[in-house]
């Protein structure tokens, strides 16, 4: 079983919202609903004693974290929410009864009820694409070349981003695009034991 994930280089994210728009287009996300949202974190003082203009900030794209031990899957009474072989969490619409307990159980609050269809939805990591070896729309469309998709078990070398000028996917380890990073620079959203799979690279700033 693979552990596919999205890694976002937050030092490169400029909050262009291309990922949000591409996601909505690829997945027909209803108006008013989002599978990705971008948060502005900061500006915060660089140190506890810092004052303006000695501040820092970053943008944080948040979507379903496709957790290793997802609470949404545990509470689903029909098995509509389930883990797939590639490690992603998917919702089988034919089984979803719309009880919304998964939406209550998600610590990140990324699920919502599609009222037209009567089913709960959230980021699928473009399963229709990734299952065919393609990249998720948010990764392909990323204006800052900040997002990468790959298998955590295969290492960072497996992570690919949008196309470069030669039509090849940028590698997360291609230092002509991506500045070097250490393991200390790699973060996850807060973990309550669910094991969020997405990773966020943040250098020279405080992860908050």
């Amino acid at each position, binding site marked *: 079983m693979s552990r596919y994930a999205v890694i976002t280089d937050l030092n490169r994210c400029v909050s262009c919202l291309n990922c949000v728009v591409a996601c909505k287009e690829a997945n027909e996300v209803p108006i008013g609903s989002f599978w990705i949202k971008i948060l*502005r974190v900061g500006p915060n003082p660089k140190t506890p004693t810092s004052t303006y203009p000695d501040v820092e900030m970053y943008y944080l794209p948040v979507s379903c974290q496709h957790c290793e031990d997802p609470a949404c899957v545990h509470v689903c*009474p029909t098995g509509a929410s389930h883990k797939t072989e590639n490690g992603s969490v998917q919702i089988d619409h034919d089984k979803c009864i719309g009880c919304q307990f998964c939406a209550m159980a998600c610590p990140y609050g*990324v699920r919502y009820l599609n009222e037209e269809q009567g089913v709960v939805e959230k980021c699928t990591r473009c399963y229709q694409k990734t299952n065919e070896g393609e990249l998720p729309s948010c990764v392909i469309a990323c204006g800052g070349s900040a997002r990468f998709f790959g298998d955590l078990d295969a290492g960072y070398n497996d992570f690919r981003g949008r196309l470069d000028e030669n039509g090849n996917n940028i590698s997360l380890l291609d230092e002509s695009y991506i500045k070097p990073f250490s393991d200390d620079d790699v973060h996850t959203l807060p973990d309550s034991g669910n094991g969020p799979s997405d990773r966020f690279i943040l250098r020279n700033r405080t992860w908050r």
Partner: protein
Amino acid sequence: MEIQTPLVIFTLLLCLANGLMGFQGLMMVQRKGDNRFHLITLIVTAVVLVVGGLAVFTHLQHWERIFNGFGQINSGITHELILIVVMVVALVVAFVMAWRGREDGVVPSKAVGVAFIIIAVIGGFVTAHSYDMYARPAWNNLFLYLYYYASELILGAAGVWVLTAVLKQGDDVNALFGKLTLVMAVLYTVITVAAMFAISTIEPATIEGITFYTYDPTHPAVDPAADLAAAWSGASAGLFWGGAVVVGGIVPIVVAAVAAFRAKLAANPALPVVALVAALIGNTCYRIVLYVVGIASYVYFF
């Protein structure tokens, strides 16, 4: 989070049904109440359960899909379904026993009474366990369990008191249930106040310094601490203090205290009816408040 009205009604009636079973089981064990009382109480409990079940069906967007694999055993909803099936089986068994012996005035056996009490104890746990999610700090604590037990106890005591008074089960039985309602109302009041105070002091875990969502710069990030304290001292304080505490707790305490000090009044159905209606209103208010304070652990998607 958004108030789920059908779930409010469902858990309210499930606690009422569980409470009725628990206290009826107590009467079976003590060999109190006549055959007519037990038959009618069983029917009332069944009706409450059916109405609760119908309420939860209105919550489901696609109830017809329950046939596509319902029963995932880790799910709290599955546990609730199993509980309801067990409750129905126990009610049917007791009803058959009481019905067959109606001419001889037979009361269901002590064993059935013990089974009713056990089901009521398990029922409170199952109801709370379904909502015990680490994603909701306000629900993910011992007070959720204590509250659902308190809810079950006050609704059950007041509910059985109504039936003993209406069906004229004797001054001693009515006085007993008046006192039981008084104790349960005090317990309910203490637990709801303690629970909401504990919830108001939870320190929400959130990213420091989120200022707004960039897709909508006019949409400021929510303040999770304010949401958690909304019922104790914020926008929902009226619903909590006025509805859940005063109407749901203090009114039944006063009514039951009057009955406790004036034993003859305990047999007047007006008192238990007031206590039960007040408890139903109060418990509805508390459940609504639970949704108000039930914010996600990490507040990203508002």
